[in-house]
């Protein structure tokens, strides 16, 4: 389209449609502005304020940001959140394997397996967390019982530092599988059968087909999942909260960023400082996602 013809076309279109496009967009836009843009803006404003517990605000300048730099809980929370996210991301390769097995032709009971893999997605997160807490119980838990069969005395999974983070991450990984398997299954069904036939004619075995046909053509789905899973991972809260419970000696060393946000906003009555933590989470997610979009050009194949 050349430069001299484009503007008239656009102008004519606007004239013909009037304000109708805006009217149709409004329901969505109002929601997005009211529940996404405005809260983000309000959080930015609040980060410069000091709050009293009943909502009164006074301007506090950069004080909340200074608190962030001197808060000894923050570095550990960033590390915990990053470790959790990294472990949950490991679920994606697992999901690729599971999804390709589930979509194999002629697999018996494939529906049944699909239901099994989808179960975590339809269970109440808190109920699931409580069940896992029992599974990981040091004295009566099934994990340590299994370990004892091979002569290993299991650790206190949910009450020892690092072990607790590992236990929460494993459950997080497990809970992230359903979405990944569904998206990857859809991606797999979108791969044309001819490609496999062609690969077979070229003499590729099952493994080679998987590596050279399946995985490259799945990369758009995998990339999408990586972005979504990482964002979810950085927002770790409810699983941690429900699995670790109160008076947990490992909690001070296992806090996530959102957990810190929660305690500052709702327990410490420090909404201003909580806003700064929220912005830190936003910044980390933003940078990490940007990085992913930069790197994806090197490994994601569209068609």
């Amino acid at each position, binding site marked *: 389209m050349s430069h001299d013809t484009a503007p008239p076309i656009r102008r004519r279109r606007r004239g013909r449609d009037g304000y109708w496009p805006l009217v149709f967009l409004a329901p969505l836009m109002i929601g997005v502005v009211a*529940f*996404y843009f*405005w*809260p*983000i803006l*309000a*959080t930015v*404003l*609040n980060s410069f304020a000091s*709050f*009293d*517990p*009943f*909502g*009164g*605000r006074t301007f506090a300048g950069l004080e909340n940001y200074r608190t962030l730099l001197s808060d000894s809980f923050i570095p550990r929370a960033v590390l915990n959140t990053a470790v959790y996210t990294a472990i949950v991301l490991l679920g994606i390769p697992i999901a690729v394997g599971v999804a390709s097995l589930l979509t194999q032709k002629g697999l018996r009971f494939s529906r049944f397996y699909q239901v099994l893999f989808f179960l975590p997605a339809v269970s109440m*997160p808190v109920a699931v967390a409580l069940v896992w807490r029992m599974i990981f*119980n*040091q*004295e009566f838990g099934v994990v340590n019982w299994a370990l004892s069969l091979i002569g290993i005395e299991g650790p*206190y999974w*949910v*009450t*020892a530092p690092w072990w607790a983070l590992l236990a929460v991450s494993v459950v997080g990984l497990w809970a992230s599988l359903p979405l990944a398997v569904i998206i990857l299954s859809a991606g797999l069904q979108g791969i044309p059968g001819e490609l496999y036939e062609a690969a077979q004619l070229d003499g590729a075995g099952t493994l080679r087909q998987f590596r050279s046909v399946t995985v490259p053509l799945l990369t758009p789905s995998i990339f999408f999942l990586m972005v979504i899973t990482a*964002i*979810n991972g950085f*927002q770790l*809260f*409810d699983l941690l909260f429900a699995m670790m*419970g*109160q*008076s*947990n*000696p*490992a*909690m*001070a060393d296992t806090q996530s960023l*959102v957990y810190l*946000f*929660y*305690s500052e*906003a*709702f*327990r*410490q*009555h*420090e*909404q201003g400082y*909580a*806003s700064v933590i*929220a912005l830190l989470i936003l910044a980390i997610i933003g940078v990490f996602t940007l990085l992913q979009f930069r790197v994806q050009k090197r490994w994601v194949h569209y068609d």
Partner: protein
Amino acid sequence: MITRRSLLGAAGLAGTALASGCAGTPEVDRTLGRPAGRGDSGAITFQIWDKAQEPAMQQIIDAFHEHYPNISVTMSSAAFASYFERLRIQATGGDLPDVFWINGPNFELYASYGMLQDLSELEGFDPANYPSNLTELYTHQGAPYAVPKDFDTIALWYNRDLLHRAGIDEPTDSWSWQEYRDASEAVSRALGDEQIWGNPGGVANQAYIYPLIMQAGGFIVDEDMTVSGYDSPEAIDAFSFLDGMIRDGIAPGVRYTAENSPKDLFNSGRAALYQSGNWEAALLQNSPVREHLGVAPLIHGPEEANVIHGIGYAMSARSPDKPAASAFLSFLGSEEANRIQGAAGAANPAFVGTNDTYIEALPEFSLDVFVDAAETARTYPASQNTSAWLQLEELLFPKILSGDGQLEKHAHELATRMNGVLADES
């Protein structure tokens, strides 16, 4: 599900930002005025957090109706876990219930921000009718802002059977720390093979750590509410006493008690001694080992010290119907209402001289121990933003007792962080 959560958090903040724009606009009339008369009509709301006490509260409301047939009281209850988050939102929006329950950790916050009605002028309410260390909890700048409802003190629950099996006689009077430790050790050594502990350890604040620090001669927060007592030598003594029992295998460690609560251990006959309050009576009367259970006065260290806490009934400073709310509030504080709540076994009534109703309602245990303790007990420690340092306790008590050899360092961190919270209070 994640986006919804982040959205809620952000929306919550935005909501407070919005609300702050409109809250506090009308000037509040702080005078109480005269209460409603017998024939006056009115309608008020009443909010509580304990479902188990709803029947007793309803009985009190019914009795109130006999005196004031034209005043309707609408009761609502919210789960304790979210009660104070809800109350804070109600207060922010200028929409507090007319009359509601409040507790020690939250009282000063609401009173100092002008959310509560000054009750100095409330007809029929005489603070002298309640234990003075309890009314002190609900006094702000010299004036009462809540009517004491009930009280809890701490004592030593024991399992007779387990003590006897370890060759220990049950306590009849207050034990010293050493006697408590020796008895715990005897049981843990004798019955440890059956997974039975002398005492079930834990990190309970009001029932365990506060009294011990006070018994060592220390304090939790000083009288001016500016200094934390957690790094004082006395507090370290108390922490070391608990840490020593864990180290020597007399009490279970904090990792164990985080998974197996002390309450459950004692209730199921897996611990012989359990320091806790009279609120346990309702649970323990249904314990599978209840015929072995008894209760003795609290242990003592270099000093004797117990902690008293109770719920209070407060009135919103912005209540649109203060005459009706006044009439209801002074009835809630009356001997009649206290007798009803005691006889229902709901809670140990605050009105001095009505405790026999509660003691008789739960004849399984000699609960008079708790009533006797009230005379010398110290007021539950609280400051303006208590909830903030309660969370720090929750986070750092278990670290202090984690046995990692850095007890003093963690206690110091708790004190430093708590001092930060106290310094931020206005």
